[in-house]
């Protein structure tokens, strides 16, 4: 069903015109004496990077060099924990923790006197950046996300132009299959296979959906991509649309990311103005339209079928699969649902070929993974490493180890559907298979490091409360199971539980995992199961010893059962709604 098309340039663009725009933009940028890139993404923006822009403009005017210094806001530069970050060219240097007051001194030192400004300098071989191989993030932080010309100057839309001009759709799919690219949303389903199924759908109206719902707390890679390099996603979607035969695409992202929504809207308008998406793209028979759909805060909308119901304007309630969306998705039509990072990998694969991509990563998990590092770490932020890199090198080399060098306790991967991995598995590789073997999962790539101040029972209760609040409520095991699992965990946390409660907890966790309708319910017990597996002793301390080793949980003192023998079932009154200390 065609959406209302916005007025476009009459004539479609040619490949030659695309190169011409790129060349012109590169020449114009080369005329500048210097460039100042200010990181405008999530963490840095909230640390005040907008005020930095004005400060640097004022500094350049004062030094009368304003006209030949290019000042732009860019996407995420990676090391969020030490933001706001600023990169200055020539003699490329990265400055951290820049405040408006320091802007003038940086300009006069780096640009006027051509000597780096020592005190805020981030040395070039900082371990955070050393062992990364960015593909999806290769232009991140160097590109002006609001200028399509800048994207084209960095080789943008070339892959789309070549695909629709020189390759048949089947050939593009073959390229993706041979590259070994798998879904980056967490499922790890082979992308080429999914494209093939949608391609074989006979209906004439098919859809491509970019899942940028990113509900995992502690994951911010989709947000960084939408804010930092929106065109890469549009190009990836257009190539996917061409390959599977879809004319309409939807990007579904969160209402809580207003800047990402704004940047993506602007990018769609720009792409239609040129036009690089719209009717008869690059003079081919292929037309592709993209619309933005904004979620409204439901984590479950990240589940494929729930996301499609949300785009259809309904309650985001998952549906049994099969039928899978690739056979019957939006309004019953074949629909390709891919994660933002998956789609952002498509243009580089089409440009550089499958063998270039499959050369990276491991045998069964090819390419790289974008990871958001957070928690009690020295270097927190956004990284991209080849699949197969060990947890140890990510946490201790790139991440710089635990803050205030406290003891490492566990790293949580896969968000509320993942697990907690203790120190004995730090040498596990980060890829789909190895993380599953140690009882966790890849998930969207959020990694939260916990030190010895964390109490694992409290963390298990935290994740279960998250799943309880985010359950859609349709199927009983998840709707009621998460409530009961949380009550038992909370009782354990407050020292009012018995060993029998622990048995019921384990039995119910397995039941919810086996019988829930969708991914949310099936993976809600994962954190508890993995924490019980690695940190069972902490549970026993809370139950029999009635104490919290990490000192986080407050035991119920007035529970009248304290004096008598431990009871088979806790009787300390728990009114469901009261705020627990």
């Amino acid at each position, binding site marked *: 069903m065609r959406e209302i098309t916005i007025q476009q340039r009459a004539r479609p663009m040619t490949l030659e015109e695309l190169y011409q725009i790129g060349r012109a933009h590169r020449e114009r940028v080369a005329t500048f004496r210097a460039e100042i890139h200010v990181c405008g993404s999530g963490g840095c923006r909230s640390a005040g990077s907008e005020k930095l822009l004005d400060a640097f403009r004022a500094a350049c005017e004062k030094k009368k060099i304003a006209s030949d210094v290019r000042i732009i806001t860019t996407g995420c530069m990676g090391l969020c924990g030490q933001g706001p970050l600023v990169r200055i060219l020539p003699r490329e240097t990265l400055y951290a923790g820049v405040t408006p007051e320091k802007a003038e001194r940086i300009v006069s030192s780096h640009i006027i006197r051509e000597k780096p400004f020592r005190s805020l300098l981030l040395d070039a071989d900082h371990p955070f950046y050393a062992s990364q191989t960015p593909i999806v993030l290769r232009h991140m932080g160097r590109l002006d996300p609001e200028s399509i010309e800048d994207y084209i100057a960095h080789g943008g839309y070339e892959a789309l132009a070549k695909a629709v001009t020189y390759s048949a759709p089947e050939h593009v799919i073959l390229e993706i299959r041979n590259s070994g690219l798998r879904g980056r949303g967490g499922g790890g389903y082979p992308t080429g296979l999914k494209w093939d199924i949608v391609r074989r759908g006979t209906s004439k109206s098919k859809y491509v959906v970019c899942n940028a719902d990113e509900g995992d707390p502690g994951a911010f890679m989709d947000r960084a991509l939408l804010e930092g390099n929106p065109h890469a996603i549009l190009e990836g979607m257009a190539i996917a649309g061409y390959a599977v035969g879809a004319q309409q695409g939807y990007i579904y992202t969160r209402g809580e990311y207003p800047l990402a929504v704004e940047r993506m809207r602007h990018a769609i308008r720009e792409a239609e103005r040129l036009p690089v998406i719209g009717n008869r793209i690059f003079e081919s028979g292929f037309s592709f339209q993209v619309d933005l759909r904004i979620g409204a805060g*439901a984590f479950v909308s990240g589940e494929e079928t729930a996301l499609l119901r949300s785009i259809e304007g309904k*309650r985001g309630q998952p*549906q*049994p699969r*099969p039928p899978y969306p690739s056979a019957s998705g939006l309004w019953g039509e074949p629909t390709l649902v891919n994660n933002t990072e998956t789609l952002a990998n498509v243009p580089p694969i089409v440009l550089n070929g499958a063998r270039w991509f499959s050369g990276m990563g491991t045998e069964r998990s090819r390419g790289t993974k974008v990871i958001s590092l957070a928690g009690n770490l020295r270097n927190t932020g956004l990284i991209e490493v080849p699949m197969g890199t060990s947890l140890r090198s990510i946490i201790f080399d790139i991440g710089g180890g635990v803050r205030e060098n406290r003891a490492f306790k566990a790293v949580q991967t896969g968000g509320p559907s993942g697990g907690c991995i203790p120190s004995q598995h730090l040498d596990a590789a980060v890829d789909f298979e190895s993380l599953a073997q140690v009882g966790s999962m890849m998930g969207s790539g959020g990694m939260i490091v916990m030190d010895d101040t964390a109490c694992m029972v409290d963390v298990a209760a935290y994740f279960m409360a998250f799943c*309880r*609040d*985010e*359950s*859609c*409520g*349709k*199927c*009983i*095991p998840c*709707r*009621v*199971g*998460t*409530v*009961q699992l949380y*009550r038992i965990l909370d009782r354990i946390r407050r020292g009012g539980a018995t060993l029998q409660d622990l048995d*019921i907890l384990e*039995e*119910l966790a397995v*039941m919810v995992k*086996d*019988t*829930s*309708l969708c991914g949310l319910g*099936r993976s809600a017990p994962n954190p508890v199961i993995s924490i019980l597996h690695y940190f069972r002793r902490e549970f026993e301390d809370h139950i029999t010893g009635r104490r919290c080793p990490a000192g986080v949980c407050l035991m119920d003192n007035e529970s009248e059962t304290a004096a008598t023998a431990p009871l088979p079932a806790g009787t300390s009154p*728990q009114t*469901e709604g009261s705020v627990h200390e």
Partner: protein
Amino acid sequence: MNEIRTLTIDGQLISADASVTILEAAKEHNIHIPTLCHLEGLSDVGACRLCLVEIEGHNRLQPACVTRVEEGMVVRTTSSRLQKYRRMVLELLFSEGDHICSVCVANNACELQDLAYAAGMDHVRFDYLHSTHALDASHDRFVVDHHRCILCARCVRVCADVEGAHTWDIAGRGHTAHLVSDLAQDWGEARSCTSCGKCLLVCPTGALFAKGFVVSDPQNKQDFLRYIANTKSRKAWKDE
């Protein structure tokens, strides 16, 4: 063009039309699979998870009510694991609502109760949540008691698909999800309601009932259910 599929259910080799679900195929060969949110004649949602069956080659349990038969499928409808899970689903339901049978209008006429007997559920191991809900008696002939509502959405489906009024729908999310009429108004003010009473007759528990019924009064729901089963999927208006 409906092709035939051959499959085995509980060791019994059967053949069934390709468009048929495992539940329908099993029913045709009177193999019993417990159901609750399923009602013949209404669309299926696969929400209560009581009809989960084991299928060889699938590591995940599949709901029989929405999973189509496939060639060479080997299905098992009962095992100790399935029975344990079915009993736990029922225990969860009893713990969520306020199912006090001794004071309930649907006592001895309640599908939830019958399923609990069949599962041998002699007690509930989970805490009773006792969440307080509204009780709406504003309609001149009917009452809705949300404490007994298990959110199977049969009433939503019969009101939308068969009556066409779509007065009922589910609002909220997760454990605060609940039934609402129109804009969460009192049932008596819901202008879209035609007072046809179909929702009462499909409600498996004592959540929707007619005024004037006292505890364990027999409600003749059974003949209406057969009527609704025949109108939609089978040959219309066939009375058995």
